[in-house]
């Protein structure tokens, strides 16, 4: 279990992490989502005691990471897969890690096999592809067979097969009862991997809910209707008690499926040019949610609406 309490990190002129409160529970995959520069990596570095919080605290299994007698056997982390000496072999990289925490050397062969690198274990890591480096990083994270696993952007640079492998691995680790905390800036990836979602932007929490809840709340769907008799159709639909909005030349109907909408309008002899079920993608929901938190937009909006207001806009469009 990982618990952050009012966790804050201020660099010289910027507030990178701004009072985060969250809990990462064991037995499920928790996705940590946010645009670049949202504070994900800084948060993960504070979990591992690499950066000291300016205020607040973060604990792993109830204590500070640094006080763990054998941290690699308690928390396995992948922070930066390419942070390896290019001249050292994969096996030697894992060997020094194992030695530092009193992990038996036999474990090195085990994790190499687990990530599928046993064939290239003796090769210098500098010659590794992006994906191989990522697998080595994951091998390092699993070396101590830790109950808590923290992976920062683990699918970066992986091919589709590798991405699926990470997804299945994360699932397996969670099913074994471990705490799995995975960061990403890709909503689509998280949607497939995570049970629980923590979304941050500009160092603040924007959402902290189960994946299902998040989907229901943010990925609204509607029926798109195009008809030459727009106003009539709108009146009919409003009259039947559904929510309708007009977007240019089309109507957006929520709360009813295509069948119901088609039958209602067809029953009144209205010609339809289009009748489509549209599901707003989670990616879109995420973009809308974090739009105000993206670094480049930081000063573009002087009124600075609260992030939640931005999330509301999406529902507004659909209703």
């Amino acid at each position, binding site marked *: 279990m990982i618990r952050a309490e009012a966790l804050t990190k201020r660099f010289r002129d910027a507030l990178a992490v701004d009072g985060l409160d969250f809990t990462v529970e064991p037995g499920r995959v928790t996705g940590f989502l946010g645009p670049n520069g949202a504070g994900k990596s800084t948060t993960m570095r504070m979990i591992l005691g690499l950066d000291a919080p300016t205020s607040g605290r973060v604990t792993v299994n109830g204590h500070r990471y640094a006080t763990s007698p054998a941290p690699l056997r308690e928390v396995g982390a992948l922070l930066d897969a390419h*942070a390896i000496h290019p001249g050292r072999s994969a096996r030697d990289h894992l060997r020094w890690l194992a030695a530092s925490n009193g992990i038996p050397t036999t474990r090195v062969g085990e994790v190499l096999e687990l990530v599928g690198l046993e064939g290239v274990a003796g090769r210098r890591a500098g010659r590794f592809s992006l994906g191989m480096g990522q697998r080595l990083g994951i091998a390092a994270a699993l070396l101590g067979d830790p109950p808590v696993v923290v992976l920062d952007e683990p699918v970066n640079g992986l091919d589709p097969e590798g991405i699926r492998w990470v997804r299945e691995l994360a699932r397996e680790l969670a099913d074994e009862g471990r705490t799995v905390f995975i960061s990403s800036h890709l909503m689509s990836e998280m949607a497939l991997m995570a049970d629980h979602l923590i979304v941050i932007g500009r160092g603040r929490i924007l959402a902290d809910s189960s994946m299902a809840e998040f989907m229901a709340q943010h990925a609204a769907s509607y029926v798109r209707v195009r008809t030459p008799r727009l106003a009539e159709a709108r009146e009919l639909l409003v009259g039947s008690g559904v929510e309708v909005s007009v977007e240019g030349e089309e109507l957006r109907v929520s709360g009813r499926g295509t069948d119901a909408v088609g039958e209602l309008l067809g029953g009144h002899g209205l010609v339809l040019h289009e009748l489509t079920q549209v599901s707003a993608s989670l990616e879109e929901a995420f973009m809308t949610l974090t739009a105000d938190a993206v670094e480049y937009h930081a000063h573009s909006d002087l009124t600075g609406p609260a992030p939640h207001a931005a999330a509301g806009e999406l529902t507004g469009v659909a209703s």
Partner: protein
Amino acid sequence: MTAAVEARTPTPAAATRTPGFVDVLRAEWVKMVSVRSTWWTVATTFLIGAGLTILMCWGNADWLASPEADESPGSFITFGTMFTPILAVIFGALLVTTEYGTRMIHATFAAVPARGKVLTAKALLAGAVMFVVGLVTALVAYAGGNIFFEREGIGIALEGDMLRAVVGGGLALAGMAVFTVAVGFLLRHTAGTISLVLALIMILGNLVNIVPGELGEWLTKLMPGNAVMPVANVVSFNPNLLEPWTGFAVFLAECAAVVAVAWVMLRRRDA
């Protein structure tokens, strides 16, 4: 909840003992011997230190034995020590700064959150390895160079100042390596660390001489490079420097100061 999870998670590793400083040393040892730069630096130290010395003794033995010689054989038998400190500096720097360069230092401090232990382990290893390398280099240089001196009847016995210089050859390189390890943790940059230490011992060490009067003399004596080297030489290259053991003691104090600053900064700064 935590306990339940730990119970459900089969961790064969957790059954083993709690790691200690020896494990940190072992990890740093594995790191050190698993990159080529270590072997290149050690081999170059030996080749330059011993090879150059033997070459100089071979080429100058007859002149040193002649009446017109105005130098003693003792200043030639440790000739290589003019250059080997450079390699000890490179060795010490690479142990630390390549980790910062590759950002592998994060993995190191995640594995060993007690950063002082990492500094200590690296300093100990750098010192121990460079002591052995410096000692062997000085011994081979002596043995090889002395062959030519003995042919000319000016051989030096391995005793007194000569024996001290051989041991000192190890001590001086060990000292420079440890000093640079500490600077490496402060600067976190390979080129920066190597240039700074080399500038300090090779350029600034000579430059302070131009400060007029007694102040300049003392500054020259106290500069780390000038303080540490006499212990490795039978006859000091510069007669105005401190006595060998006095100088080495001064250097140790300076080295301890830099290590202490590095230690404090290491604990205070973000990795």
